[in-house]
């Protein structure tokens, strides 16, 4: 394992940018702020790319780690600040810094007129720094610091426009909601960590939070492990992931988080932070792979979330809300993949999703910017001609997310579906069907969004214009990535048929940190690609067909027969309203959790005021009364004794005071004389014989 202290620089640079922009940003002008804000992330990206090329790309594919700095040192429990980069991490680093720097550049244009420009850049730099800490920390504690740090930045950025005249309150409430909902997940995550820590410590005497060491322990003691306990740990950890990655039941914060600036939605709530949960589950693959039950839970939750959010996405009219539900749905997809043991496929989908979803969000930001803040797609339409570049990039990303080959989304989605289908888990086929349905719905609502926004006639009133270069630049790069990003993971079956090589480079690359056993451990034992390549082709065909039919349905409903959607809505009013109002989940939470909580708090407060305070007050009153009687005794008996002693001391001191003349020399003379005496006495006691000999030798004795 190589060491490289440049890893610290990767994290510290954005942090330095944060400090600079926060402390000096308001003095130095927007140009320098944007230069520093973008520059540090771009340099981080270059450093990451350099690490990638030097340590991973060329032959010697080894993990890299930095020097250790001792952080906590208590008996056997040591936590080091060590940064660790393996194949999984470097992929995440490249995504975070790469997409991150594009979004930073985009923000320069998007946030240009904002009065808290420097604050925005400092937060977003801080976010990058914490996200890198999350993925690079070798210790779980370090990872947790990053985990909480990105939560903090998310909170700060969702409520970034807290002083907005109309929506200020709701913006800050959205930030609080995100923070509180995440706390629920974090609680679960923390409990899971503690159980894991204590279990490993007590059973194997390894008190550690170091991921590699945990992995070692689990690997060496595979047979001795307590699987039910680990299942509980996994589910608890997954609870944390649910919070961060917006899965049922904790997904409610993500749609509200769209209150933040659009680049933030793109970076934090689509491309990077929300994928932290997926990353975490993939990082713990070695534990999850041992617990089929936990995997089933993950798969089912993921699949349910995917379908559930997709259906909501069909009925929304806010352009960012649609994308938000789409994000939830795609995150569900990733967990679905994790649940069937296809961790690499999940990471692959994470990467491609980062490209096209960031592109979609930035495109929607461009649309919002161009139409002067309009977010309702009912008031858009016909933007194709007015914002050509935005339209083209948005369309590419939409096709990518719908899963049409050869764009990025197809390969990752197909990989997940194939892994789900070929899994021999009980839930495999079930989640495959759900995934297929979701794919259909995804294609439908994404094209609905595309058609409503960019086709037809313009239904708004604002003067529409194309966005500035800094914004368009990021769009173009991301759209290009959405096209070609999937080509690193073309399924082997396809590659072997067409060009006779292994084309799934992504999987082979990540094999090193997510080893084969964990990837398919108890799940894919008898599966191998040779037997199923024909099945794989059929499945590919099916998924393309499903996506195409979704697109066609959208085309039919929103381009050909525009009156049908309204008819459907009016003919099934209950169903439509339920979905339109997001299944009333927020309301359900409110009445089931929030309201009872408030009511019980009121009751508790009342109890506190009357019963607890009352008893305390009673005791105080009675103490006060009884003290009066004690006081008499105190004044007459105790004080007299004390005063007597004091008088005695005072008179003695008055006599001793004469010694303290304030004459330094006097003091020093006394000190010297007494030290001579002490030395003489000590020496004569300790070494009397020697003294005697000496005096004899001088002829004095």
């Amino acid at each position, binding site marked *: 394992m190589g060491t490289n202290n440049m890893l610290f620089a990767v994290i510290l640079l954005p942090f330095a940018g944060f400090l600079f922009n926060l402390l000096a940003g308001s003095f130095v002008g927007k140009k320098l702020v944007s230069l520093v804000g973008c520059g540090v992330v771009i340099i981080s990206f270059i450093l990451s790319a350099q690490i990638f090329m030097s340590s991973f790309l060329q032959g010697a594919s080894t993990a890299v780690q930095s020097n250790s700095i001792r952080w906590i040192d208590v008996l056997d429990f040591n936590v080091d600040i060590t940064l660790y980069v393996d194949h999984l991490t470097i992929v995440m680093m490249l995504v975070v810094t790469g997409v991150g720097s594009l979004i930073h550049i985009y923000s320069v244009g998007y946030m240009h007129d904002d009065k808290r420009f420097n604050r925005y850049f400092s937060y977003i730099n801080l976010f990058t720094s914490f996200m890198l800490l999350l993925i690079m920390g070798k210790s779980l504690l370090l990872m947790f610091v990053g985990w909480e740090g990105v939560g903090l930045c998310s909170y700060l950025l969702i409520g970034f426009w807290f002083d907005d005249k109309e929506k200020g309150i709701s913006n800050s409430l959205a930030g609080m909601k995100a923070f509180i909902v995440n706390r629920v997940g974090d609680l679960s995550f923390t409990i899971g960590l503690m159980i894991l820590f204590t279990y490993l410590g007590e059973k194997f005497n390894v008190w550690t939070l170091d991921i590699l060491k945990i992995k070692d322990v689990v690997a060496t003691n595979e047979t001795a492990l307590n699987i039910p306990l680990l299942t509980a740990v996994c589910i608890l950890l997954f609870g944390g992931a649910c919070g961060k990655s917006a899965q049922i039941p904790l997904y409610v914060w993500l749609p509200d988080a769209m209150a933040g600036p659009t680049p933030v939605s793109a970076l934090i709530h689509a491309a990077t932070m929300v994928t932290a949960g997926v990353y975490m589950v993939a990082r713990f693959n070695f534990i999850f792979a041992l617990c089929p039950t936990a995997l089933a839970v993950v798969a089912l939750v993921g699949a349910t979330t995917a379908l559930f959010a997709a259906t909501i996405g069909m009925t929304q009219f806010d352009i960012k809300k649609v994308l938000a539900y789409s994000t939830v749905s795609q995150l569900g997809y990733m967990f679905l993949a994790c649940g069937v043991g296809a961790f690499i496929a999940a990471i692959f989908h994470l990467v491609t999703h980062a490209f096209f979803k960031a592109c979609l969000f930035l495109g929607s930001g461009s649309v919002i910017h161009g139409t002067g803040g309009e977010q309702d797609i009912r008031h858009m339409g016909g933007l194709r001609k007015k914002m050509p570049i935005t339209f083209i990039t948005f369309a590419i990303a939409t096709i990518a997310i719908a899963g049409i080959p050869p764009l990025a989304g197809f390969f990752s989605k197909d990989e997940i579906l194939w892994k789900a289908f070929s899994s021999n888990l009980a839930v495999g086929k079930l989640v495959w069907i759900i995934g297929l349905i979701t794919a259909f719905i995804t294609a439908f609502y994404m094209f609905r969004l595309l058609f409503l926004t960019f086709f037809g006639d313009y239904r708004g009133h604002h003067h529409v214009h194309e966005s500035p270069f800094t914004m368009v630049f990021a769009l173009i790069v991301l759209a290009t990535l959405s096209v070609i990003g999937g080509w690193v993971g073309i399924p082997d079956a396809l590659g072997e048929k067409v060009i006779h090589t292994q084309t799934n480079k992504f999987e082979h690359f990540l094999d090193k940190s997510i080893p084969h056993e964990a990837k398919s451990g108890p799940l894919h034992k008898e599966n191998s690609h040779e037997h199923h390549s024909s099945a794989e082709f059929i499945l590919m065909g099916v998924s393309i067909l499903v996506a195409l039919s979704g697109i066609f349905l959208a085309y039919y409903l929103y381009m050909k027969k525009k009156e049908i959607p309204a008819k459907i809505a009016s003919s099934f009013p209950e169903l439509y309203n339920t979905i339109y109002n997001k299944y009333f989940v927020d309301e359900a939470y409110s009445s089931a959790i929030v309201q009872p909580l408030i009511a019980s708090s009121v009751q508790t407060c009342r109890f506190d005021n009357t019963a607890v305070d009352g008893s305390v007050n009673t005791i105080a009153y009675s103490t006060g009364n009884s003290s009066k009687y004690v006081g008499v005794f105190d004044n007459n008996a105790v004080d007299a004794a004390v005063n007597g002693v004091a008088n005695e001391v005072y008179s003695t001191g008055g006599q001793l005071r004469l010694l303290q003349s304030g004459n330094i020399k006097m003091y020093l003379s006394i000190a010297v*004389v007494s030290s001579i005496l002490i030395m003489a006495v000590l020496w004569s006691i300790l070494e009397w014989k020697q003294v005697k000999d000496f005096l004899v030798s001088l002829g004095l004795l």
Partner: protein
Amino acid sequence: MSLNEILLNIIFYALALTGLFSSFMVATSTNMVRTAFSLLGVLFSFAGLYGLLRADFLFAAQILVYVGGILVLIIFAIMLTHKIANVNLSNESTSSSTVIAVVCILFAVLVFIALTLPEYIKINQRNKPLTEMIGNNLLSDSLLPFEILSVLLLACLIGAVYLARKEVKE
């Protein structure tokens, strides 16, 4: 006894006599400024002794801190606390035979202790340069005192600035 050692001894005695004479001047000189410059002689001769004892870092530190820092401070203090129209600033002392007697007794006791050094003290002079060891020690074993000292120095700096500044009249 080799020529080398004789040379070292001559240097030692030269330094020791300078030190003794200068400290005698510090104790008895009637001129304030001369007292201060006699202290310079003591500090230099002690620095020389440190060099002779191969405590190289201490040699440099003694000159750097004492001569370049403390003594300059002392001379500044002398100049700032007297009306310096006269070159021959008197430096009064209140000597008495009692004091001299006590100090002589003290000296006798100390010499006695020095001459009756226990036998087990192994006499073997170090030859290696110490600077590197001192540097390593400062950042490992003595790290705590080192840090405390740095805090103390900071406190002294602030305290001295606070004490010495002119009171702002309201």
